[in-house]
């Protein structure tokens, strides 16, 4: 589904990604771990199409199509979803109106009519229940005055509504207490299927206890330096990253 080949990227002339290779197949869960400043968030931003980063070399394929020249919204329409580490506050636009607009814009891009209002309402109800969200929450301005946990829950709510092919969760566990973490992880697990894939970007192993990865990759200094199964995450939790650094020398 997602295939990244020799990806190099920089921001303001500083090279951050130095040749990433990654293969994610449908039905798989991948975790990307690594110390601060390794390039984890850069990688997720670039897959989603953030124009602040310049891809200097390499390719990103989604279902065989090279997408690195596409606008963020075009990638979204093709099924890429990025759950933001720091979701943006948009005062004056309610959670409901925002998600309606997002869904109908995606449908428009696919040549479909707007989703009928009753179907939309039903879906909103269903998915907000899945994430144990209060009804009042839906009429509030998007992310404005939300707690860290509410913002993340709202990201996963949007994920559930949009049903993307590829979901990238960027530090979704940061700022979550244990209950919120359980709810969010449960939401992600319920949405998992053989047709979609999840990439979890995280600092800690904690989230991976709930969303169990098939593969774990260690990203350091702009490169994936080690890959393994779920046990690698446990090893990292226990030993930190220094032993990998030592291995590399």
């Amino acid at each position, binding site marked *: 589904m997602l295939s990244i080949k020799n990806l190099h990227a920089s921001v303001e002339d500083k090279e951050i990604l130095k040749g990433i290779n990654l293969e994610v197949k449908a039905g798989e869960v991948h975790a990307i771990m690594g110390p601060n400043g390794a390039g984890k968030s850069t990688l997720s931003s670039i897959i989603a*199409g953030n124009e*602040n980063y310049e891809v200097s070399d390499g390719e990103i394929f989604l279902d065989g199509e090279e997408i690195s020249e596409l606008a963020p919204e075009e990638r979204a329409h093709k099924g890429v979803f*990025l759950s933001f580490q720091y979701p943006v506050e*948009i*005062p*004056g636009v309610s959670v409901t109106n925002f998600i309606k607009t997002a869904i109908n814009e995606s449908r428009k891009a696919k040549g479909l009519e707007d989703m009928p209002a009753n179907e939309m309402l039903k879906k909103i109800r269903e998915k907000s229940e899945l994430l144990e969200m209060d009804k009042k929450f839906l009429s509030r301005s998007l992310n404005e005055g939300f707690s860290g946990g509410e913002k993340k829950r709202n990201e996963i709510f949007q994920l559930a509504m949009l049903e993307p092919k590829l979901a990238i969760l960027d530090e979704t566990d940061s700022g979550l207490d244990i209950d919120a973490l359980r709810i969010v992880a449960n939401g992600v697990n319920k949405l998992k299927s053989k047709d979609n894939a999840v990439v979890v970007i995280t600092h800690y192993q904690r989230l991976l206890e709930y969303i169990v990865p098939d593969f774990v990759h260690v990203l350091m200094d702009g490169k994936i330096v080690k890959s393994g199964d779920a046990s690698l995450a446990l090893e990292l939790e226990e030993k930190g990253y220094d032993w990998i650094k030592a291995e590399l020398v």
Partner: protein
Amino acid sequence: MDLKDKLLSSYIAFEEKFDMDSNLHEVRNQAIKNFENKGFPTKKEEAWKYTSLNAILKNDFSVFPKHENAIEFKDVKKYFLHEVDTYKLVFIDGKFSSFLSSTTHEGIDVCLLSSVLTKPKYKPTLETYFNQIAKKDETLTSLNTAFAQEGAFINIPKSKVADKPIEIVYFSTGTEAALMVQPRNLIIVGENAHVQIIERHQSLNSNPVLTNSVTEIFAQKRANVDYYKIQNDVQTANLIDNTYIAQKQESRVAVHTFSFGGNITRNNLNFYHQGERIDSTLKGITIIGDKQHVDHFTLVHHAQPNCESHQNYKGIFGDSSTGVFNGKIYVEKEAQKTDAFQQNNNILVSEKATINAKPQLEIFADDVKCSHGCTIGQLDETAMFYMQQRGIPKKEARALLMYAFSNEVIQSIKIPELKQRITKIIANKLGVKMGFEL
């Protein structure tokens, strides 16, 4: 002959038409003298530093249209809020159109200023209100006073509630190559009375128009007034709007100014407090592009204790457009416990757009709460990326952000149809179709 000379010479002929015994004669003479001394304002004056009238004054404006013009309702329907559910005072090239209007004298007066100026029964009204709050030393206001002959007269007596909003619409047909019009509105809202008014100036073709309008509003004790100005005129229309509001105790007056069009628009909006526990609201949304220019020049004069004023102006400037916000809050020594708030937020969408923002607080009382905030920024790029990531295309994402930015002001519109209309105008202006009303 330049416009000033033309106006001065036509004044004599104009004045001869009127009854020379009336007090009005003296008022007009004083006014024209002031204009003769001061002329049109120039950029040398502090108050006009950022707005130049030079280019528009070069037009050969006719000051009295020669023809009476008619318009079919169907051709201008879109400029009205509602076909039947509003009172209407409609003027075509400065002349009243009884055909398009819907006036009333039942309980409330929604009629013409010309009646007040000429009919003996209105003499006390004329003497008590006309030109009483308008600034006598302001040159363009004086010019209007000298030539005032037509406009809206609205009188809502004590404890009456206007059952429908009142629309005041000034059309110019463009049958003159260039036209100057000077509408004059007088609005009296009695004790405990309520009224909602919408004012609009609209050119129907692209011949240059200069409108120098003066509106005086008197809000008596506990009166409640909502006034909406829709400025969405063609690119060759210029508007100088001078509005003066006198508020008595516990009255509440809100003026919303929506500036979406026109060439040069200058809004001189002045609030004067004449009692305690007054509430004044001044809000505006400006969305312009091309070479359009909108200047908001506001004054809230706090003269009595325990009064509040709330100002909130939002501006979005594209292309080479220019904006000015000059907001003055004056708090006299007696005006203790004043709560004055002023906010002005601007977004520059293009590198060539300019905004000059100048909050001016002059406070002589020592126990007051006065705050002001002014921001000038660009559209938030992170927010843009966030929305695009959720599948909302760039153009729509920009529009959504701009909506969100103006939303605070849109939400305080009290007439639902008007709220919808403004939302629609903004969507058109931004070139998008929104799937929902904010």
